[in-house]
């Protein structure tokens, strides 16, 4: 008798869980598992959307890695952005976070002003920067000219387009500022007081008290920064499009990466291969490379204890 009620109790609990989880279970199947498997399948198919898919073995893979002229430049750009933009953003975010914890007058106003750019819609923000940095007419050009520094070509110069994007990313550092601010306020007061009694300088206090305490957050910022860079799409695309002066509309094709492939990123290749060249198979190969890279860093993030607060209780 009692085992029966126990069994029925268990069944009811399982049903309850399934009911609560059901939106996501369906979503997981239709919008994650199925398309992911399908992407693997298409990566071995020749498919242009019109004729039925035909088995093509590893031909798409060979094409992407050996002959697709945009693949390696995109990967190189991603690496550049990871090394330069992500680290600058973390350092700058930490700096601004430190600054905001030290500001005593008008803290709320400063915090809001520092945070706002992060919220600017990416298309609008990129458009704004394309204007600000526009050679000849942009305000930044005028200012640099005024102090006698020759202004670079920014989004029209292959050497300066990524620094321009980095500037845009630094402007939107608000997310990191808030995270670092919270972490800095969590550092125990007593540790600073003890360090001060020992006669530690400001730098030593930062190096031996602040940094060890916030190092998990620094790590979190770096890894999420890397993941975001893998997904970097709208800003480089819009910057290239606006600077190149291509008019969007039917019949126009924008070759991504302007100027000279310098703003190419992996997600743009999926669009280029799939929706401009109608080579769905090769697009899926790039998609899987993107997937593998994202998952490596996500796994790294999840494995670190405390990083995502996964521990149940």
């Amino acid at each position: 008798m009692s085992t029966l009620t126990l069994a029925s109790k268990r069944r009811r609990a399982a049903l309850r869980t399934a009911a609560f989880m059901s939106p996501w279970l369906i979503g997981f199947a239709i919008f994650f598992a199925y398309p992911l498997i399908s992407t693997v399948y298409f990566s071995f198919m020749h498919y242009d959307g019109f004729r039925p898919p035909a088995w093509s073995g590893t031909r798409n893979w060979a094409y992407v890695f050996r002959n697709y002229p945009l693949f390696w430049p995109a990967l190189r750009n991603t690496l550049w952005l990871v090394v330069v933009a992500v680290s600058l953003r973390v350092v700058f975010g930490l700096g601004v976070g430190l600054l905001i914890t030290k500001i005593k007058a008008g803290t709320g106003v400063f915090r809001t002003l520092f945070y706002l750019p992060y919220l600017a819609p990416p298309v609008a923000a990129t458009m704004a920067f394309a204007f600000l940095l526009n050679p000849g007419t942009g305000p930044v050009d005028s200012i640099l000219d005024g102090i006698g520094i020759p202004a670079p070509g920014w989004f029209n110069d292959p050497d300066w387009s990524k620094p321009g994007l980095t500037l845009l990313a630094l402007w939107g550092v608000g997310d990191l500022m808030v995270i670092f601010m919270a972490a800095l306020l969590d550092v125990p007061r007593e540790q600073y007081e003890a360090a001060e009694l020992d006669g530690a300088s400001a730098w030593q206090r930062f190096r031996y008290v602040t940094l060890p305490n916030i190092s998990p957050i620094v790590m979190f910022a770096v890894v999420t920064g890397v993941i975001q860079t893998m997904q970097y799409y709208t800003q480089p695309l819009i910057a290239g499009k606006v600077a190149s002066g291509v008019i969007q509309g039917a019949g126009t094709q924008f070759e991504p990466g302007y100027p000279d492939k310098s703003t190419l990123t992996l997600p743009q290749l999926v669009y280029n291969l799939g929706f401009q060249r109608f080579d769905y198979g090769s697009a899926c190969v790039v998609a899987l490379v993107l997937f593998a890279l994202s998952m490596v860093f996500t796994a790294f993030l999840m494995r670190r204890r405390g990083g995502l607060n996964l521990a149940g209780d």
Partner: protein
Amino acid sequence: MKLRETASPAARTARRRALLEWIAVHSLGVAAAVFFTLPFVFVFLTSLMSDSQALSRDLIPHTWEWGNYRKVFDTPGFLTWWKNTLIYAGLGTVLTVVSSIPVAYALAKFRFRGRNLSLMLVISMMMLPPQVIIIPMYLFWAKQLDLSGTLWPLIIPMAFGDAFSIFLLRQFLMTIPNEYLDAAKVDGCGDLRTLLKVVLPMARPGIAAVALFQFFYAWNDYFGPQIYASENPAAWTLSYGLESFKGAHHTDWNLTMAATVLVMAPVILVFFFAQKAFVEGVTLTGVKG
């Protein structure tokens, strides 16, 4: 006052150093504020310039052309983009919140086999770039359901839980002590009633944060409308239309900047009204503990 006069020289230098530090910190703060604010200011000023002045190197408008904003609104399609954006962002947000809450609740408070696995899969979905699965998804929506040229391929999936929202809500629900749930159970509440009557009122800040994030996500989304709506200008959103606006007015920086202001302004207004919930949400995204 008296104390001050009798203060030792050491205390005086300490005070002077504190004052100098105060000045240094706040000057640096002002410099940073200028860096973060100036782009907005330049965009706004340019949006009020005449056509020819916007192409010059002037920073301040000679005449304040408020009519530029009128011209933007009169652009064919602009109001439709507004409407579409509100539908996408509004409907999408409601669907996301309603479908994500029960999942987040189960992940935070139920004990079941596969819970950690589910959570790991949620995080993987959260980190998945949308481009990874876009080919099959596009074929599914466009070829099988014939829904390309609309925003439905972007809205419908939101009825099935959004990974980021689930994760963020779950983090928030974890902070609600189990005693409240146990008390509700003792009072005879079932799971659904406990969720609706006890948990939801306590989770209001978390829900607000999720709703805001989702609203901003849809508002800012460029890739989604580019894939599904590009062929049909009647389905464009602001973020997508803005770029074509630039294309059509490619030397009129003043009008383009006015349109840019109109895309940015609602986001900033919403932020001012809901600042607290938002900042709370950012800190909740995973860095506690």
